[in-house]
């Protein structure tokens, strides 16, 4: 497919709104899933390392006592 110009490409033969409306939401959706997953991992790792530190300090406390 040879597009005459970029404006012709974006116009999609008059269907630009529908084509780009579909593609935009699809890529936003997929990107959002990845971002949410990374954030979930970060929160989980922070939470887990806090709890490990807690148990460690408890242990050292126990040995001292």
């Amino acid at each position, binding site marked *: *497919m040879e597009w005459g110009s970029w404006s012709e490409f974006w116009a999609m033969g008059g*269907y630009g709104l529908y*084509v780009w409306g*579909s593609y935009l939401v699809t890529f936003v*959706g997929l990107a959002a899933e990845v971002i949410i997953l990374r954030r979930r*991992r970060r929160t989980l790792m922070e939470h887990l390392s806090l709890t490990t530190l807690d148990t460690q300090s408890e242990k050292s406390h126990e040995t001292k006592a």
Partner: protein
Amino acid sequence: MAKIAWFKYSSPASFYFLAGRMIPWFAALAAVLTVAGLYIGFFRAPTDFQQGEAYRIIFIHVPAAWMSMFIYVVMACWAALGLAFNTRLSFMMASALAPTGALMTFLALWTGSWWGKPMWGTWWVWDARLTSELILFFLYVGFLALQAAIDDPRRADRAGAVLALVGVVNVPIIYFSVQWWNTLHQGASISMTKAPSMAAVMLTGMAVMAFAFWMYSIAVTLYRVRLIILEREKNSQWVRELLEGRRTDDRGLDAAATEAR
């Protein structure tokens, strides 16, 4: 003959590390295939003689719709395995697949709607194909809501698995809906028995995008199952070693697991 330890990876701890090694490959494949698929779809595939440029939505609509059904079947298989053998990893896989499946279903509905508007003159119609796909979305959401509502993870797993198995009856209904009923939705673009009704280059673009969506789904599902494994196994020896930086792979994991017991 070397004995392959298949069951080694049915242990969540071993699978955590295996999945971690696989994710970059699937993610890279997804990225490369997306670029290639979009290039074919927008710069190689010709204008459709009936639908003009609007048909280019097909390169994301059909892959999303395929994945929405395929993920559900895979999820139901893991659920069945979990119920049959009571393997924790199977249930975790089912839970990890559901959000991606729900997203794919939403995208199939969304892109379908934005394709339907210029072609049919309406965003939505209650025909068999669209309605059964909407039910698929509700099945995914129902699965997620049910699991979230039950506090005990093992009971949540079983309840979700039963729902997933019952709902699988909807998948052939979606697939064959265009044959069984008179629908506004067009018939299958690709069939096992007939020659494809599309130009070869359009078909190639669609196939490449379908593989891209497939690889993406595998990558995010593996990423999510790793989080689920960590969340559920957070009190085990190997997770503690991992967090303390004393463990970077699954070497000697079985010994460590025994030790923890």
